[in-house]
């Protein structure tokens, strides 16, 4: 076991998978020098053919990843900030997501997209958004939202090996989080949730960077004998419905905690799942604690007011358990 940051976990996963399969390659803006450090040093190990700086041309290089994947390689494509995906929407949603199906299964689409999402303090609306909801209703994509270094490494490796297009969302505020990661080959399957904390009174389904915050709230409430179970779905597509539902079956109460927006968001999707398939387990309404439906504002007090936060999660839990 070695202590590793979230960013280092990405770097390790990339280096290991690139060493394993010579048809993998990395491309994106500034991946050679690597602004956030995730691709640092890959150029020295794998050279310029497999580590490519792209022009600032998201539609172009994301589309090139689609073509390269269809032609038999395994691209790992970095889109810096998740909001920049908007510049390449057609290539992700119309092309990467659909072509395997529309070709009657002829096309393989083993692309891994990486991007940084979420608020990291004063980055304003075009660099702070949680955009996975925008992809939730695009059939054909897999969506991965790792909440810690160990999951990041294991999930990213699985994403790279997957023959479908997978988007891995890295929270910008988690970059420096560190923990021990299992030594040797470490894979986490896509579609398997993790129960991060066992509890009895209420289930909190927390996504991405909300997981460590939910755990903090759970710690605090434990002192008052409010026992919170924290479930991290880890992947939104595929979604591990069984783990979520069996947790709610035990606790009879559910809150979904997400940094995305409320309308059409991941929390809304998961709440609907619990409402539909877990109705008989519930003692009260499913609560959604999310970011307000506003663009993320720049000024710190406004940003704080907009974002999903621990205080609102705590209030929702207290309301459900009546304490």
């Amino acid at each position, binding site marked *: 076991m070695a202590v590793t940051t979230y960013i280092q976990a990405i770097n390790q996963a990339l280096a290991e998978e690139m060493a394993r399969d010579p048809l993998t390659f990395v491309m994106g*803006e500034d991946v050679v020098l690597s602004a956030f450090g995730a691709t640092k040093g890959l150029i020295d190990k794998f050279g310029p053919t497999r580590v490519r700086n792209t022009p*600032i041309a998201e539609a172009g290089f994301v589309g090139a990843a689609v073509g390269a994947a269809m032609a038999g390689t395994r691209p790992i494509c970095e889109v810096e900030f998740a909001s920049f995906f908007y510049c390449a929407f057609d290539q992700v949603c119309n092309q990467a997501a659909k072509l395997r199906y529309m070709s009657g299964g002829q096309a393989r689409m083993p692309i891994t997209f990486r991007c940084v999402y979420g608020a990291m303090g004063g980055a*304003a609306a*075009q660099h702070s958004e949680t955009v996975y909801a925008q992809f939730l209703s695009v059939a054909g994509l897999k969506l991965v939202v790792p909440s810690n270094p160990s999951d990041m490494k294991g999930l990213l490796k699985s994403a790279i090996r997957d023959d479908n297009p997978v988007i891995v969302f890295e929270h910008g505020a988690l970059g420096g989080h560190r923990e021990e990661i299992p030594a040797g080959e470490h894979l986490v399957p896509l579609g398997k949730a993790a129960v991060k904390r066992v509890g009895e009174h209420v289930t909190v389904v927390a996504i991405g960077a909300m997981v460590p915050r939910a755990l903090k709230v759970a710690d605090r409430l434990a002192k008052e004998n409010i026992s919170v179970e924290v479930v991290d779905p880890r992947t939104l597509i595929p979604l591990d419905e069984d783990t979520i539902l069996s947790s709610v079956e035990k606790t009879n109460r559910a809150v979904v905690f997400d940094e995305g927006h409320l309308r059409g968001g991941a929390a809304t999707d998961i709440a609907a799942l619990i409402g539909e398939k877990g109705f008989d387990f519930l003692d009260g309404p499913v609560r959604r604690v999310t970011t307000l439906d*506003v663009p993320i504002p*720049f000024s710190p*007090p406004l940003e704080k007011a907009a974002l999903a936060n621990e205080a609102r999660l705590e209030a929702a839990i207290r309301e459900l358990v009546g304490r």
Partner: protein
Amino acid sequence: MDLGKDLLLDMYRSMTRIRLFETKVRDLATANEIPGFVHVSIGEEASATGVCAALRKTDRITSTHRGHSHLIAKGGRLDRMMAELFGKRTGYCKGKGGSMHIVDFSLGILGANGIVGAGLPIATGSALAAVIAGTEDVTACFFGDGASNEGTFHESLNLAAVWKLPVVFVCENNGFGEFTPMRTVTSVKDIAVRAKAYDIPGHIVDGNDVLEVYRYASEAVARARAGEGPTLLECKTYRWEGHVVGEQAFLGAASYRTEQEVNEWKARCPLIRFDKFAAESGKISVTDLQRIKQETEVELEAAIKFARESPLPDASEVTEDVFT
């Protein structure tokens, strides 16, 4: 072109305001008094200034993530800009936008933008609006060399050319997009040659010579206003500072350019160039320049004080200005 003294002094004031504002903003961001991502234009004062000097008040501009210079050159107030950078309620966008998103409609500033290449179609649409409304206003569109590789650049130039729209596309080529040298990701050495593909005029301009920028911009603006369509200007320049304030924290020991290169460009400082011109022209005295510098220092100090003393927005304002 014989330029009058007032115009020359206005351009000097604009460049001085940009230089002093940006230097201060860099320091305040380094000291964490300004949150978020901050990109400054030190060394790139002449392109913004020369272009905006060729515009009239009702003309419009679109800007970029590195937008302070364009806003100042178009007449932006330092106090409301600084307050916005501080996230204060008195800022141009009530604290909702920040450094990358300052807007002032009263001055025709349609906005800085956090998305590279986003300003190009917006400027094209702004020019279209002038045609539809029949106002003869021109739109100047600032963008970087990096943005010229986005699809929006190519789509916008074609659209503006086909519809003969009154827009001037101004590429500030500072040689880099983030840490990537332009030449490693761009098929042409000069962005201006891309104008050929759209059958519009394209000119390479010394972007550190405000008078040359002004001359080319005036010609392009006149052409646009006369209904003859768009022009592409490529202002060759250089950013003295990092891509973003504090980039060393990301880069560590890595670097993407040499100190020698930076120093060579510092020797071509747009303000020193102007000082020399002023001395040679005989039109402008050293006291004129000193007075402008002192006035700007006073203006800037007042702007910082205003920003510091202004209130932060109230949390309740978070849901204003949007449908929820």
